[in-house]
């Protein structure tokens, strides 16, 4: 099997790499470790009601503890979505003695594009310049101007709804009409703006479409908010709904599923990768595929895993930093408050996004308390339903009558802090433990530092202040981050940088050491920002694919 390019992984960035490379005329092989999931046909729980499910959507706790001990901690993991998450018992990983890391994974065609939170935010120069400004981590070799046109391209294609707010720290994009703030959120936005003009509460920019793309077989969002089951309307961006059909249309794409890539083949004479070695998990046989270049899009940690497993000490690792400086946003429930005064208001439909309050500190003035970077909030206002009964004493007719009607309005603000890149937060191969295929297990060592704790402490205090200013009664708030991995924004490990001595990739997401090797998923990230990273991964992937095609045509790789 010989191809122009091999794309390892079929998730958010793998789909983009496949689309861009095939549309440029390259013959591409996409290799996915998990099973095939066909758009529409294979979303098996999408139309199920709770009473259709053995455990009513809540799931079998014994099964989840046994086989999904990590995945079940993901808030998107339910009995309905369980088919879209990995079996932890069959896919083990190791953590250091002081590390708590919940690694949420989806090993299937489409990867986590099926289960992602769909929040879609541009990064700004506050983010791309963060490492240079405070000296932590290595400087990004790109700035906002380098990526802005690629953001345009990606947003237009995947379909992003959002409101333009003219913020320097969260640049506007190519948006479809925004989803609506509900009555309470509209009130809170106004109250916050009155007292803190620099703080903007806006509706979450989300890859759920408010306008259809009939020419691509995609309908607008139906406001079900059960996205992670898979969406037959194609209303949110996933590989299946968006990039895969585009790549297939070219006639240039070959897809192999149930194939775990264990290593890249490297030819030291030419200093090129020649292809990949993979395990066909259905037949348990080892196979090889060859290509002129390789795009690693296996997911941040798994792309690093493949490089670590490809050569002693790691392939493409002359810098020695492969696996280091991994990050995940530190996140916690900063404040939850009752919002009285809206008892005669309600909503209809399930909006599949919340609100965001973008970063507002450490921008042009260093005003963070004990930290040098940013934090932001996501959350929203909602009205209680029957689950409020869990907290309510009483039985009988009166109790049933109370639960029959919508309960009080609440508003929650969840803080997300920038994560400082640190050499000590790193991935290695476990020296002893192997997985079902005999491959060394990945080991994660990770701890948040004083910067993240300081940011979340400030976030807690200011979330409460904002909700109180809007008339809320704060019920609770936390300043300690959940386990690392909770934000599901794990990134880094093959960072981009100017200097081959201190970084793995150059500004084209291309290995400094190996010209025909590109890593365009989250592994390439040099810093974390405090907003969701998937859009940036996609834009960098499209940008890298364009550059790679040019290099290939010029005979440089």
């Amino acid at each position, binding site marked *: 099997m010989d191809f122009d390019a091999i794309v390892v992984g079929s998730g958010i960035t793998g789909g983009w790499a496949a689309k861009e490379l095939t549309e440029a005329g390259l013959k591409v092989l996409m290799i996915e470790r998990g099973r095939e999931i066909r758009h529409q046909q294979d979303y098996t729980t999408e139309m199920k009601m709770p009473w259709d499910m053995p455990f009513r959507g809540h799931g079998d706790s014994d099964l989840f503890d046994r086989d999904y001990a990590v995945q079940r901690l993901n808030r998107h993991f339910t009995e309905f979505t369980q088919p879209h998450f990995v079996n932890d018992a069959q896919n083990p990983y190791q953590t250091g003695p002081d590390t708590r890391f919940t690694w949420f994974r989806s090993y299937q065609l489409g990867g986590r594009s099926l289960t992602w939170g769909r929040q879609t935010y541009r990064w700004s120069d506050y983010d791309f310049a963060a490492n240079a400004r405070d000296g932590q981590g290595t400087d990004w070799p790109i700035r906002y101007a380098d990526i802005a046109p690629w953001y345009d391209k990606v947003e237009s294609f995947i379909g992003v709804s959002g409101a333009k707010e003219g913020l320097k720290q969260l640049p506007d994009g190519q948006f479809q009409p925004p989803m609506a703030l509900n009555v309470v959120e509209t009130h809170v936005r106004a109250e916050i703006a009155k007292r803190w003009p620099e703080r903007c509460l806006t509706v979450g920019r989300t890859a759920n479409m408010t306008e259809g793309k009939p020419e691509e077989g995609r309908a607008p969002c139906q*406001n*079900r908010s059960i996205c992670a089951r898979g969406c037959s309307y194609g209303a949110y961006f996933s590989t299946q709904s968006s990039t895969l059909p585009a790549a297939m249309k070219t006639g240039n794409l070959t897809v192999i599923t149930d194939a775990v890539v264990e290593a890249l083949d490297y030819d030291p004479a030419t200093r090129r990768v020649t292809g990949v070695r993979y395990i066909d998990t259905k037949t348990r046989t080892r196979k090889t595929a060859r290509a002129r270049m390789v795009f690693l899009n296996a997911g941040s940690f798994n792309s690093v895993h493949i490089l670590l497993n490809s050569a002693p000490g790691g392939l493409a690792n002359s810098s020695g930093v492969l696996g280091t400086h991994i990050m995940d946003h530190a996140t916690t429930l900063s404040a939850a408050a009752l919002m009285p005064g809206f008892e005669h208001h309600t*909503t209809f439909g399930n909006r599949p996004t919340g609100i965001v309050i973008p970063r507002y500190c450490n921008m042009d003035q260093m005003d963070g308390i004990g930290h040098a970077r940013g934090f932001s909030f996501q959350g929203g206002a*909602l009205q209680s339903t029957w689950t409020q009964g869990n907290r309510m*004493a009483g*039985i009988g007719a009166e109790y049933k009558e109370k639960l029959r009607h919508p309960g009080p309005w609440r508003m929650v603000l969840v803080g997300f802090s920038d994560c400082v890149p640190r050499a000590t937060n790193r991935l290695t191969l476990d020296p002893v433990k192997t997985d079902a295929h005999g491959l060394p297990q990945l080991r994660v060592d990770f701890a948040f530092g004083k910067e993240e704790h300081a940011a979340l402490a400030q976030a807690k205090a200011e979330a409460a202040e904002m909700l109180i200013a809007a008339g809320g009664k704060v019920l609770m708030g936390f300043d300690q981050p959940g386990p690392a991995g909770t934000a599901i924004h794990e990134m880094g490990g093959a960072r981009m940088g100017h200097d081959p001595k201190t970084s793995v990739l150059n500004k084209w997401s291309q290995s400094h050491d190996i010209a025909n090797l590109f890593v365009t998923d989250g592994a390439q990230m040099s810093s974390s920002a405090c907003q969701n990273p998937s859009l940036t991964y996609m834009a960098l992937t499209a940008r890298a694919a364009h550059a790679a095609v040019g290099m290939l045509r010029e005979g440089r790789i």
Partner: protein
Amino acid sequence: MPKMKSTMERREFLAGMALLMAVAPMAAHAKPAPSPYQPLLREVAQLVIPRSATPGAGEVGVGAFVLLALDHGLEGTRGFDHAAWLKTALGTGFLTQPLARRRSALAALDARAFAGDAAAKPWLAIKRLILLGYYTSETGGSKELQYVHVPGRYDPDLPLKPTDRAFSSDWTAVDFG
């Protein structure tokens, strides 16, 4: 098809088949072991959510669901026999007492649990399972409350009248409300 002795038998058979068809594909592995606590849980569920304009929790099978859920450790119930505990907590003669006595005994247990009495704490998980069983049943979820699988739109501000029913399909509210 087996021969039917009477129309009643035939009707029951068809109803049984319909039920089997409805649950068979996914629920085949999820049958609870036959439990001596079934009558107790059915009655307790019915006392928590009694019949109003819609059926009560006991009537729609929530007792059996709670036993299934306890069997599989839902709501952190593994490692402790909640059903046996409930029987002891309510007394052996509970089911033979008049309705008013049954109601007041359960209300007293509920009040103690919500007042923080550690000895009554297992009730909190049982109550959560009763609510889960009822409001995710077709009756509780779509007749007592409203269930809309495909809303098709989002209205951010509508007047709420005192008679308006909540939505069991408001997933954000279910998770965080």
